[in-house]
């Protein structure tokens, strides 16, 4: 199981947040968040203890825990084997490990070839 790099902003597993969460750096979230998460240009990692009930807008999203809400990623979404996701996913690339659970839509955004 991957662990957060020391340079990441981190929300520990005992932390509970309700409301809008936004930032301009990568975030490792192992606690509970309810509301919305906007990290445009940066990545969100939901750790194995993470429980998120929020719409997520980020460059990259990695889910190891539970996420309920739509994911909009400008780059990629990784659902690890312990991920439980309920919501629609829109991304340029998606990777889903065997064992991950998804209830929702997967739509790949296409970038126009130049």
């Amino acid at each position, binding site marked *: 199981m991957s662990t957060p790099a020391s340079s990441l902003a981190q929300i520990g597993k005992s932390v509970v947040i309700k409301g809008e969460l936004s930032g301009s750096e990568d975030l490792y979230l192992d606690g509970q968040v309810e509301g919305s998460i906007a990290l445009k240009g940066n990545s969100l990692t939901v750790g194995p203890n993470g429980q998120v009930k929020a719409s997520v807008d980020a460059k990259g999203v990695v889910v190891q825990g539970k996420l309920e809400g739509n994911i909009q990623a400008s780059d990629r979404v990784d659902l690890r084997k312990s991920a439980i996701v309920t919501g629609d996913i829109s991304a340029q690339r998606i990777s*889903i490990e065997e064992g991950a659970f*998804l209830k*929702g839509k*997967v739509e*790949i955004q296409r970038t126009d070839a130049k």
Partner: protein
Amino acid sequence: MSSVSQTFMKFFRGASGPETIPAQGSQKLTRRSSGLGELSRTWESAENLCVLDLGSTSPANIRHFTEHGHRIYSEDLLTASTDPELLTKDEQGNAVLDSRKFLADNLVYPAAHFDFILCWNLPDYLDESLVKPVVGRLWSVLKPGGMLLAFFHTRDAGPDSPCHRFHIIGADTLEMQKIVLRREARRGPTGAVHTAISDGFQLQRVFNNRHIENLFRDFASIKFFLARDNVREVLVVR
């Protein structure tokens, strides 16, 4: 066949919620599917189709459809049907599942939304009280002219036929994986999480051709493919 209450007792004794997982070390079987082959010819030549996969989350299926530029919806109805809150009693006091609640929580899509629905073996393993309501909802969310693929065991398959999940690995080829249920149990005295694993879903009934035709009587057409592995593939068009 086990009753609803027996099935629920098996799934939920001390459980917080089941998840389906492939059986540990289970052999993956491949099978040719004529029904899938027929569907593939359509989705390989079209773009931006909308597909509903009613089996366990399958990375292979999601990859297959997104690579073709389609949108795929994944919804594991069989696992959803094991929600203990669905358990209720009918007028005679028999344990049944509350189909209204089930359809309020699942298969919630606009009418005529999907071009294809992959039912796999869902009707064979779904509780009796949910089968007709679910097929009715599937009719309404399928576009006119849209197609639905379902698999039904023949009587020769036997009552212990394991429930499989299906991964698309070719235009007419499926990989089958036996399903078991994993339940997250409570933490033990040492703090360690104990996970209970039970057998997979049990075959609830065997439909004959007339039952299947009745089940899909609101659809415009129905086509049967008899496979070698005691499975009838059924392709219906709304």
